[in-house]
Structure formats: C-alpha cells, structure tokens
C-alpha cells in the first residue's frame, strides 16, 4: 500500500508534469477512438451501401455480349433453395443532356434498367426510394439532413408498382407540363400524346447548386448500342428520386424500367434461338442479380452450383446458334468481386489506421518514458533514501510502474469518455463547424457519403485499450528498471 501512497505523492507533487502526460495520453486515445471509429464506420457504411446497391451475386457474360435467356436462367436459379431473389438488369453508361438558361448541360450517368418489383428482392432498392412527402420536404429545404435508408420504411410492392405506373407518370406530367408548354410547346405537344418512359434519379442529381435535372422534368440520354454499334438517344420523364447515402450513386445513376432500358440500348437480338423467351422478343440483358439467404456462407456454393450445373446447359444451346452468339461466356461474380477496388481501398485505409494506432501507442509509450525518466532523474535522491530505509529494488520498480500506469489509465479513461462523446456528436459538431466557417471537413462528393459515419466496435476499444496500456507499460518499464537499479549511496549523494 505504501507503494501506492508514494506513487500518488509523486504524481500529485509534480501534477503539471503528470497532468501534461495525462493530457498527451488523452489526446492519443481520443484520436485513436475517433479515427478508428470513423474509418470503421466509413468501411462498414461503404460495404453496406455498396452491397445495398448490388445483389449478392450476378450472372453475366463477357463484354460486349449481353446475356440471353435471362428469364429462363433466372427461373432455374430461383429454384435453388438458398436463393431468395432473382432480378434481371441492364446497365450502361449514358451521356446526359439538358437545356438550361445558361446553355446546354452535359454530364454522364450510370443507367440501370430494372424490374422494379423483383429489384426489391435482391437489394435495398425498396429502402432507397423516396416517398412524395419526403421528396417534397427535401426539395423545400435542401440543407436538411436526409433520413438514412436504414431508418426509412421500405416501399411495399404496391408502392413500387405505383411509382413506375403509367398513372403516376401521367400525374407527374400533368403537374409539370405547364412549364414545357411555355418553353417548348412542340415537345410538350408530342409528349402529351406519348409520354416518355419514367426514370428515378438519385437525389443528389436533383438538389443543390450542381443539380442535373429537376423533379418532373424530361431528360435526354445518349448511349451506344452494343448489339448494333449505333448511338441511341432517348427522352425520359423524372418521376421520382432515390437516396442510397452513397453520394456518387445518388449523383450519377438512375433507374428505369427494364423494358425501357432494353429498348433504349437496343438489346433486341433476332438471331437468338429462343427469341420468344423474354418480353416477347429476343432481348438480352446485362445480367441477372441473385440474392442468397446468407451471403457469407452461401455465396460461394451458390456461385459454384450456377456455374457448374445451370449455365453449361445454356452454353450448349448457344453453340447451335449463329456465330455471333458463339462468344457467349456466362459466369458469376460476387458483389465483393465487382467492387473489389473500392473495398480494397477501404481495407487499405483501415490497415493504415491500424498502423497509425501502433505509432500513436508508441507515442504514448514515449511520452510516459520521457516523463518517468525525468521523474527518476529528479527523484534519484528519494530513491536512495527509500532504499536506505529498507525498500527493496522491486518496490522502487513498482512505484515507477504505478506512476506510469496511473498516467496511462487516467489518460485512457478521459480519452475514452471524450472520444466516445465526440463520436456520438460528430455530425452535430461538424454541422456547427460548417455553419461557422462554411468549411466542410467531410465533403460528400469526395467521401461518397452525406454524413460522417461512425461505428464504435468493442474489439476496437479493446485493441486501443490494450495497446495503450501496453505502450504505457513499456514506456514505464525502462525508467522503472533504471530506478530500481540505482545504487543507494550514489543516489543519495546525487545532486
């Protein structure tokens, strides 16, 4: 007990020095918790968002060929017991054009043609869709944070059908046609007789100063047909918006019905041997999305089953067809495989953060080492006195280990509290800084996300605590050993 007593006196006697060391440890632990939690949150949210916009698996084929027999293949895959959803899709890049008061606006977008109802079975599509009232609220106040997809009630199948229905499209057109009648009466007259197909734009494309289009407007897209090698242009009516939280997705992608997409890209292939199997014509699609019950354990076996048992039958069928389709090479790919570059970047960043943790913990150790070394130098005579009145070396060693540990534990405790509190309110703090300085620390166009993600993991806290205590102990060890090895007479007579 007297060791605690002496160590406490040493701590309190030089409280400025000890306090400075505690502050250094607090800052280190605080930084570690905040950085690690933000990066963990960033990684988790990135994976979550990427996974939400992608299905567990896709069945596709080598480019530039697209996948025939989509409905047949999809139906067979759907029969597998572990498969929970199947949805064909079309995906292509397109140039976006719009006439604005300042002149023509062009940009690029990722066009995704989907079967809206089945799309909801293979990802988080139903959560991404914005209801009219939420969309109206966002459009009224664009600076207000948007509810996260996971906090939003998913669209029901009926709501999805209604969103893409002709009636909804007509209602949107009726609400916005006045402005077209004023500025482009010929077009308005044309669209009045035949409405363009509907599209759902990402929310970031219709809000903010850099908006590409407005809700209820008609946009023009241009792309390239892979089947015929021709430029394809189409006009589409913006009937809704979605919000994934992944800024790039919400800015540069749109959904349209699968049939409209196939027609837009011109994926009709009359030479297909089973031309009647999809949408009453030989349409190809970019691929088939597949959702499984537990992607971690079932993705790989499902992929193997599809590649070894289902796809070879269709390859055989294709081989009997004309030479153009002889290039058909279907394969499966996981969502992690498709997004491997992004996911690897996140993993690399996490690895760098872990390295930083090591460096910061070494810093903690170095701070404690320096403080204790100074303390040993300053207390050298005291060490001699303690030894003279009977303290064994082990007691002197323990006094300095307690001294270092107390700095470490106090710093750890305050660092934990402040770090966790900061993480809890990080977005509010960010908003205050932005309101005062108009400086955005976490620009959504760079980091893909509109809010700073935070994920506090128990394992991270254990790791930070463990490494900090280890750093503190190692930092205390050498000075404590040095103190313990002091010769009492030399120490007593030291100046």
């Amino acid at each position, binding site marked *: *007990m*007297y060791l605690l*007593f002496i160590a406490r*006196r*040493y701590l*309190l*006697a030089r409280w400025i020095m000890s306090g400075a060391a505690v502050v250094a440890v607090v800052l280190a632990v605080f930084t570690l918790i905040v950085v690690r939690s933000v990066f963990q949150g960033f990684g988790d949210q990135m994976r979550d968002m990427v996974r939400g916009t992608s299905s567990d698996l896709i069945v596709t084929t080598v480019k530039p060929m697209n996948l025939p027999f989509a409905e047949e293949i999809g139906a067979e895959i759907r029969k597998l017991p572990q498969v929970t959803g199947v949805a064909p899709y079309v995906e292509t890049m397109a140039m976006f054009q719009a006439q604005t008061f300042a002149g023509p606006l062009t940009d690029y977008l990722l066009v995704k043609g989907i079967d809206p109802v089945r799309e909801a079975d293979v990802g988080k599509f139903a959560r991404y869709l914005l209801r009219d009232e939420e969309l109206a609220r966002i459009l009224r106040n664009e600076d207000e944070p948007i509810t996260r997809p996971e906090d939003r009630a998913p669209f029901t199948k009926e709501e999805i059908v209604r969103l893409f229905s002709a009636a909804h499209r007509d209602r949107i057109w009726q609400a916005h046609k006045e402005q077209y009648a004023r500025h482009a009466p010929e077009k308005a007259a044309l669209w009045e007789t035949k409405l363009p197909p509907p599209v759902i734009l990402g929310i970031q494309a219709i809000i903010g100063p850099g908006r590409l289009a407005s809700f209820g407007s008609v946009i023009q897209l241009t792309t390239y047909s892979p089947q015929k090698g021709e430029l394809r242009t189409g006009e589409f009516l913006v009937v809704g918006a979605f919000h994934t939280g992944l800024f790039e997705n919400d800015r540069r992608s749109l959904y349209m019905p699968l049939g409209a997409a196939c027609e837009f890209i011109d994926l009709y292939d009359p030479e297909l041997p089973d031309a009647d199997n999809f949408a009453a014509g030989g349409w190809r699609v970019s691929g088939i999305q597949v959702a499984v019950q537990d992607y971690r354990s079932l993705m790989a076996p499902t992929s193997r089953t599809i590649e070894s048992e289902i796809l070879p039958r269709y390859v055989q069928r294709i081989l009997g067809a004309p030479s153009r389709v002889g290039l058909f090479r279907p394969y499966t790919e996981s969502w992690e495989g498709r997004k491997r570059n992004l996911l690897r970047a996140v993993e690399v960043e996490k690895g760098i953060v872990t390295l930083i943790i090591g460096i910061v913990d070494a810093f903690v150790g170095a701070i404690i080492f320096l403080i204790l070394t100074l303390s040993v130098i300053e207390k050298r*005579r*005291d060490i*001699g*006195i*303690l*030894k*003279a*009145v*009977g*303290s*064994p*070396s*082990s*007691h002197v060693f323990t006094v300095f280990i307690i001294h270092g540990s107390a700095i470490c534990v106090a710093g750890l405790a305050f660092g934990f509290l402040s770090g966790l509190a900061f993480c809890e309110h990080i977005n509010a703090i960010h908003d205050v800084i932005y309101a005062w300085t108009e400086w955005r620390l976490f620009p959504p166009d760079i980091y893909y996300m509109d809010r700073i993600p935070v994920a506090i993991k128990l394992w991270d806290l254990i790791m930070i605590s463990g490494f900090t205590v280890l750093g503190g102990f190692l930092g205390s060890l050498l000075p404590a050993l040095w103190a313990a090895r002091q*010769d*009492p*007479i030399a120490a*007593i007579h030291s100046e």
Partner: protein
Amino acid sequence: MTPILAGRNIVKCYAPGREAEVLKGISLDVHQGEILAIVGPSGVGKSTLLNILGLLDEPNAGEVHYGGRETRFQGMNLTALPGPSQGWIRNRLFGFVFQMYHLLPDLDVLENVALPLLMRAGPRLWFRGKAAIRQRAADLLAEVGIDARAHARPRELSGGEKQRAAIARALIAQPEIVFCDEPTGNLDTTTSARILALLWRMNKDHGTTLVMVTHDRDLAQRADRRLYMVDGKFVKEERRAQAQ
C-alpha cells in the same frame, strides 16, 4: 562478548586495479549498546566504512557479521545476503541519520518519520494499523521536540528540525543499530549540542547502539569508544574511560 556487528578485512576501492583503495582491510567490532565514533579527517573512508557496515554499499573484499537479536542472521556475512534481505535488515534492524538529513520532500514530517513502518504494512495493516503507526510517529516527534511541525514539509523546517525528524525516522522501527554520518556536520553549535543530547538520550533510554562517523573531535570525545582512521586504516582506538 559477541559483537552485534563485526567488520572483517573490509576492502573498498572505487577504481579497481588502480590501487585506489579507500579501505585497506579494515576490521572492527561494534558492541551492543555502545556509542562508537569513527574519527578522521575528510576523505579517509569513514563514510564508506559506515555505508558498508549499514549495507548501503558493497565491499570489494571482506565481510560484515551480525550478532544481534535476529537469530536467523546471526553469524552470517550480511554483505553476501540478497538485496531483499539486506533491505529487510536496513528496515528493521538498522537506522540511518545522514549529514544532509535526506527526508523525502513530498511527504510531510510525520509521514517521513512513519515511512519505515508504513513500508512494512500490507493492505490489512495499512488500513487497520496506519493510525497506530502515525501515533507512534507523533510520539517520537514529541520525544525529539518537533511535534508541532508534524504536518510541515521538510523544506519548511530548519536544519536542526530536519535532523530531529531524521533521528525520529531512524528510531521508529526500534533498530538495534543507528548509523550516523556526520549528524551535526551542517548544524550550528547550539543545535548540534541539542541533537547530540537527543542521540545520547536515545542510546540511554532505548539501548540503541550508535555508530557515528565524524571529524569533530569534541563530538567524538563524548563517545564510548573512538576509532581513529587515517588513509583507509584504523590507527588508534580510545575508550572514554581511557581518554578521561
């Protein structure tokens, strides 16, 4: 009569191999209850000898034998004991009074005095016996006449008060031997006289053996026995009766 402490052929050199011997094979006996003064000019090795006898320093050769009340160490060469055992002996059997007092500056006077006993206390004794230890320290402070300064820090005390506190610390564990290294070296004449009177009273009241190093011949004259040291060797021994 078996000496309470005996040094045999003690050799100490600070630069081995260069014939810089400070102590050149010194032997001496310290008897129970006596006041022994080791006298000599500065630099002859008096303090080195005291430190070796008090197990604060190690000799290059020679032995220190113990013959006191602690039977498990009787007849043993104390310098060959492991560090923890030497610490145990310094804490319970020996006391030290230094010329520069050497009180811990971050503890108050009472805590400095109580330190040797607090050091022994495990958690149970710490909580149950701490009050008794503090009371004993307070009693000793009263005995040495500085009970009013019990809660002062050492820097707030005069030289004489510090030395009284150091003496109280040396005595609190009821040691068999107190080693005093120039105990009045830094004090004025009046204060020195008071400190010496205190030490002599302790010797008389508690039967504590005093081994004192001094170059003050007047102080040495009051000791029971004096060993004169020159150039690392004893050259003369005097007893009080003989001297008188």
